[in-house]
């Protein structure tokens, strides 16, 4: 039985980077440390009896130092890849990033091509997974117009992609006030015309008022379009399900049936 020093940190990019900073500089040696992010999916059933748990308090300065060294010693591309891994719902992502960085600082910018390496490949696959969900949502997000003209959308993404999708809408809808709620994480992004968009937490905020559809006219026009554009002779629910997984549908106007 191995005695690990387990650095437990917040489930965020900054939290993971802080833990990496502290584990790296702890002097225990890479083989003896582990990073473990706290996430909803961790039920702590597998607490390792003989390991020592070290609680890491997120420290912005240390986190920034880590991101700076990734950018300068590896590459911007590697930095972005690591961030997307940190946004994923993969359990053990903190430790994966740590292992990836050990290789990266050793090999440099070429690391991203080392796809036959298990760690690098895992990072690569997670990037595709996170990017894939973000790209899906660029299309699947549905806004409803509230009485006050604000556009609101609700999403339930597996990965924490709100910061990846919001810039697209800020660019596309510069004159709109819009809010995107991530109901799985109780966070939302807000955009006002002429201002930079922000992400806010709303653990106690009651957003239920926003669920009431105010927007009937164009929503029903959209449903009419959606139903009529399908070719009856080619109806194919399996293909439809494969292209548009069921889990997205609860937030999509055209799949709401009363």
């Amino acid at each position, binding site marked *: 039985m191995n005695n690990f020093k387990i650095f437990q940190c917040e489930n965020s990019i900054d939290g993971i980077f802080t833990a990496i900073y502290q584990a790296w500089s702890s002097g225990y040696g890479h083989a003896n440390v582990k990073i473990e992010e706290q996430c909803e999916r961790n039920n702590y059933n597998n607490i390792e009896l003989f390991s020592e748990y070290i609680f890491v308090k997120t420290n912005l300065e240390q986190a920034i130092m880590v991101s700076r060294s990734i950018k300068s010693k590896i590459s911007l591309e590697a930095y972005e890849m690591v961030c997307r891994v940190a946004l994923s719902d993969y359990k053990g992502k903190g430790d994966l990033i740590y292992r990836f960085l050990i290789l990266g600082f050793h090999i440099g910018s070429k690391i991203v091509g*080392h*796809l*036959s390496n298990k760690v690098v490949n895992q990072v690569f696959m997670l990037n595709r997974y996170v990017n894939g969900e973000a790209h899906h949502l660029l299309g699947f*997000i549905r806004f409803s117009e509230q009485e006050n003209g604000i556009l609101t959308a609700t999403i339930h993404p597996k990965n924490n992609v709100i910061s990846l999708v919001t810039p697209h809408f800020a660019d596309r809808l510069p004159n709109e006030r819009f809010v995107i709620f991530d109901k799985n994480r109780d966070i939302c992004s807000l955009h006002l015309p002429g201002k930079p968009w922000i992400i806010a937490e709303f653990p106690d905020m009651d957003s239920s008022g926003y669920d009431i559809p105010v927007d009937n006219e*164009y929503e029903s026009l959209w449903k009419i379009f959606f139903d009529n*554009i399908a070719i009856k002779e080619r109806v*194919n629910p399996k*293909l*439809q399900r494969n292209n548009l997984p069921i889990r997205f549908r609860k937030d999509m106007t055209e799949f709401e049936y009363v």
Partner: protein
Amino acid sequence: MIIQEGMSIQRKLEILSDAAKFDVACTSSGVDRKGNGAGIGNSLACGICHTFSADGRCISLLKILFTNECIFDCKYCINRSSNDVVRASFTPEEVCELTMEFYRRNYIEGLFLSSGIMVSPNHTMELILDALRMLREEHHFNGYIHCKAIPGTDPVLVEAIGWYADRMSANLELPTASSLKQLAPHKSRKNILKPMRQIQLRRESNNEYLGIYDGRQPAGNKVESLLLKDDNSGRSDSVYNKVINSYNQKPHKANDYPIDKKENDFDVDLPNSNKIIPYRKSPTGRSRYVPAGQSTQMIIGATNESDYNIMSVSETLYDNFDLKRVFYSAFVNVNDDSNLPSTVSGPPLLREHRLYQADWLLRFYGFKMTELLNEKNPNFNVLLDPKCDWALKNLEQFPVEVNKASYYTLLRVPGIGVNSARRITAARKSAVLDFKDLKAMGIVLKRAVYFITCNGRMMYPIKLNEDFITRELLAVKDRLPFGIEKDITYKQLSLFDDRRFQTDDRLILQQFSHA
């Protein structure tokens, strides 16, 4: 003709989206455009699917007809003049309203406006031009617009519309001029190819003017146009005119390619240059003419052309008309016309699928059409995808060494696609790859094992024997889109039999039944 007065927008949308559904092209791809910070909209080159309809197809654009009134009588079309269907027309204002309100709510990437022909091609295209102009200039819509070029439209209108649209398409409808004449008596090959050539030439001159090269332009022209680009602010008339003149005098690139006249009846008289003098500045303030290029569509299975006929046409269109996409639409006999093939047992989806696979091989895999089909062997294999089929006929080119083969050689290996080939070429820079590495990289080896070596060794010691590999490949299930498998009933197979099962394929079938 039934025309209802004062029809609601709901009812119009119902009729005019239903009437547009057979147009396949619904992609919003081909142009990257950031938001301009003022209006509404941007565009991503990769395209975005917003939802998938019950038939499993991507919905990206608000795909509607401007009107389903039509003075033409194309046999395959529900809107043909001889049909007694309810007719409706949008106003340009209604088209704008739907596009804008759908776009804000993120239902769509933009608009795909097609139309029946009301009064005349020019009358219809003028209304469409109005709608597009209003969208771009009054509503400051900066999203994607795909617009149909109706055959027989005046070139001046085509010229104007191209400044507002991202993509335009003139549908070829049928692979040969004779079947077109037969089924669409009011259309002619020439009328369809004319706007296509006009748009092609116009795009080339626009790209040249802007100094944009997509690899098709002769390098010699670069210098002059780049100068022009740098000289953006004080563009001197003489330099500008020089370019225009040289453009008009130059024998045109598009005609440098030999056209296979016998096969394709593309020998209609098409202009070498569009005589229209390009606007100095675009009248719309937009700088690019049809930036996402052109596409077209052919109906598959309404007439008896072979896959070879169809693919020859596609290749010609890609090579000589610079098309971005050719779409294939499995024929559905909507009019229950007894002169046309019946589709009660389902449209020819498998055939459509094979054509898309082959089209892909032409566009991204470096294949030539003649490698896949020829006059003796004019149809695709029902049981194997075109690449497997090709590989089996060319076993002497295999196996290839994963650590050495060029990117394009890797692409020819069954089971290795663009993603896998890219990953392999990236990974082998830093390590010598073995089969277990390929597996770890997520590369599917089921088909590929018979065609590759790693460090000179094959995964299993197999002899490259055609029969054996054929059987193994048939055992790996063809990744057909869902729902196609169940469509190949025995009845259909026997229908295919005379035309589609050539000697080779019969052999395969026999092996199949022995197994």
